[in-house]
């Protein structure tokens, strides 16, 4: 009895005397840690170079802080305005200081928020030709202290300590000039070269003198010009005309010497007397905007922040979304119709023939995308192979050569050929696993071949069809290269619009918003794909 009880109460021990449970747990934990240790480096790599950049891109689609940096004083008091009648002197004055002076860089610690409109620093005007020191200190006395200048000096000295080739040194110093500007302002691509030059020879102890303030003023002025340019472009998205209004006003503001500003500003630009202009300014106050998303669907806010359609001539994107969807659907269905019989043939032929035919499927898969596009250009152009064959075969007359390139048709043909392997391969691998005896059994039980196919064979191939359809659709919807090269005017898709706004029009917020919508759609499809196929089962060729 006693010995029996002891075996029950005493836990099982391993050779070194620790309880088995503890030992097992420990080895399990070690195995887990080792697995995590292996996965961590690649995961971090991907996080840093892929997930974070994309997340960063997505934030750009709502980020609207730029105008807040440009108009801190105006936005801090604009709420007092009733939004109906022409604003009074106070608001005009604020716009005058925001557009015409660099004071905001000197006071607000460049956050653009938490602005105190009663600070007298806002209303100090630094004379164009100096002296600079006195007014700058009046705006913000902190600039008279050595500590305020230290971080800037540190940026300069760190860059001077860099050792390397002459070219590298020059690059590092150039970089430091950008860093100074991005320390002082929200801009990353303005260079503060004068400050760099002055700070290079500073002993970091003596009180900064007039030439420091001159450099500060000049550098910040050019940065301010830059910021105004960028933010007025952004304001133009809200209401066309803002860019020219801001540019004209900036030049005109030099002539205004004394208040009242209201009449003077309206005299320079009569648009300042238009309530609509001021109303559009209210809409831009929020540091986050959904405006880019609305714009991506041809919509915008009106004065009372209701969502309305863009004017007719600016409506392009909804049509593009539909076209992208339509083209992806056509391509997907086209691929399915072509792929199904082919996959069936490949799956049912004896291996020695099917291997040979499989090469036909895999070869395009392995060939450079651009090579395939070039090949199609040779085939499809007006003087191309297909038209030549049709003409010499007497089907077409020489003057009626078919336009198959640089249009919607061309894009569809080329994309189907490019994506066909993505459809054939998953369907093929599913069909390969269906025993041929099933069809025979169904026919044996009295089904006609077509009924047996519909009721027995086809349902079993559905997973393959699902995988192929989603895969092709995902790839097609985000396509860029093919439509860009063969799409011409009416074959362009959303992907091309993203590229256009990234590279040409530089409306990055809109590009990011369209990219986000596209990405969202694709992630949903990816999730569905995972449910149907499981990403673990994704196979390549």
């Amino acid at each position, binding site marked *: 009895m006693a010995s029996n009880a002891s075996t029950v109460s005493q836990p099982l021990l391993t050779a070194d005397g620790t309880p088995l449970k503890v030992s097992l747990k420990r080895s399990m934990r070690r195995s887990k840690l080792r697995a995590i240790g292996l996965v961590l480096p*690649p995961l971090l790599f991907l996080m840093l170079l892929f997930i974070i950049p994309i997340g960063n891109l997505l934030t750009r689609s709502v980020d609207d802080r730029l105008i807040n940096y440009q108009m801190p004083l105006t936005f801090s008091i604009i709420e007092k305005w009733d939004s109906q009648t022409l604003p009074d002197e106070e608001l005009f004055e604020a716009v005058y200081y925001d557009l015409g002076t660099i004071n905001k860089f000197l006071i607000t610690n460049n956050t653009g928020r938490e602005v105190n409109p009663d600070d007298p620093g806002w209303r100090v005007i630094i004379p164009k030709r100096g002296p600079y020191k006195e007014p700058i200190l009046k705006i913000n006395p902190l600039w008279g202290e050595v500590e305020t200048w230290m971080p800037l000096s540190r940026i300069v000295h760190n860059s001077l300590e860099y050792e390397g080739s002459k070219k590298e040194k020059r690059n590092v110093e150039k970089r430091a000039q950008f860093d100074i500007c991005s320390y002082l302002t929200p801009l990353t691509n303005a260079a503060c070269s004068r400050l760099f030059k002055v700070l290079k020879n500073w002993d970091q102890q003596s009180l900064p003198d007039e030439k420091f303030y001159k450099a500060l003023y000049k550098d910040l002025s050019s940065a301010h010009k830059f910021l105004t340019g960028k933010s007025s472009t952004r304001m133009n998205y809200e209401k066309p005309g803002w860019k020219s209004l801001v540019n004209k006003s900036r030049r005109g503001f030099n002539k205004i010497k004394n208040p009242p500003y209201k009449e003077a500003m309206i005299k320079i630009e009569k648009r300042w007397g238009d309530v609509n202009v001021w109303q559009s300014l209210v809409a831009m106050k929020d540091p986050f905007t959904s405006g880019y998303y609305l714009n991506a669907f041809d919509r915008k806010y009106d004065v009372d922040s209701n969502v309305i359609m863009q004017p007719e001539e600016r409506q392009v994107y909804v049509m593009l979304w539909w076209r992208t969807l339509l083209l992806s659907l056509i391509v997907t269905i086209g691929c399915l119709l072509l792929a199904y019989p082919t996959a069936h043939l490949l799956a049912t032929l004896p291996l020695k023939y099917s291997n040979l035919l499989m090469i036909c499927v895999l070869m395009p898969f392995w060939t450079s995308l*651009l090579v395939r596009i070039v090949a199609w250009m040779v085939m499809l152009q007006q003087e191309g192979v297909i038209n030549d064959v049709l003409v010499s075969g007497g089907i077409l007359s020489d003057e009626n050569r078919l336009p198959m390139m640089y249009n919607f048709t061309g894009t569809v043909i080329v994309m189907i050929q490019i994506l066909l392997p993505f459809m054939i391969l998953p369907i093929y691998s599913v069909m390969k696993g269906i025993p041929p005896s099933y069809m025979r059994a169904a026919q044996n039980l009295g089904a006609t071949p077509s009924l047996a196919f519909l009721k027995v064979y086809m349902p079993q191939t559905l997973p393959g069809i699902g995988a192929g359809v989603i895969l092709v659709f995902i790839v097609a919807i985000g396509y860029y290269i093919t439509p860009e090269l063969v799409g011409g005017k009416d074959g362009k898709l959303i992907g091309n619009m993203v590229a256009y706004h990234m590279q040409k029009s530089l409306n990055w917020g809109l590009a990011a918003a369209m990219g986000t919508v596209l990405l969202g759609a694709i992630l949903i499809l990816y999730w569905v794909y995972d449910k149907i196929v499981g990403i673990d089962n994704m196979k390549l060729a």
Partner: protein
Amino acid sequence: MALPIYATPLQRLWHFTYLAICAFVLFFLVMPLIAVIPISFSSSPFLEFTPGMLAFDPEAFSLRWYRILIGDCSDPGITTVCTDRWIIGAQNSLFIGIIATFLATTLGIMASLGLSRPHMPYRKAIMAVMISPLIVPLIITASGVFFFFAKLNLVATYAGLIFAHTVLGLPFVVITVTATLVGFDQNLTRAGASLGGGPLRNFFKIQMPLILPGVISGALFAFITSFDEVVIVLFVGGPEQVTLPRQMWSGIRQEISPTILSAATILVIISILLLTTVELLRRRTERLRGVTPS
């Protein structure tokens, strides 16, 4: 797939339609690639089969476009642009491709080994992240990477392109190597460990040779992805980083000369070679696993 003798005429008709569709599809897939090859040997600057070529006139064929491709501009009859950028592009593509492939393969093997261990937590989620670069459209990846690299000063550098291409190649390695690891007998490494082999030695002596086919085909996929990639190069690369696809891109956009076709021909031949390699590797894996191709 022969038709039974008792097939009705309708069935016969359907069967031949089916075969015709399949023949059309296979023809449709390969024909453009094949058609490029003879035109690249044409002596005329037009992208078409000239009457001379169809008559097999030896005068109509020449290697002049290949000479331009390798930067030999001595041909007096050339009216198209002749630069050494094709050669530089090929060198750059190889350089970027090889380093990116090496990085992607190393990271990919680590990830696959970790993900294939039995006690890996959040396996599915991590797998989804690993494969995501394959799913996200290139244009979005390129835009995101462009802004991010601009902050890190990596725009217009080789390092930037290599990193971005590594990201794109990683999923391929992860997919192929995890697939090979599914059939891997963990007892083999345990046996190695019990015989005194350290984890590294065990890996290189036991596991690596067995998963090698998966590693190589993953690496080939990663390489071909980098070698063929143009969107990221357009966004992130500077004028110095001209790669072969980028040179083709600008060639297609500016003036399509048969030089592009000669480059295309060479790439088609390379892709046939790669395809053969991967196919042979696949058969080897199946043989090793004891699955004979039925």
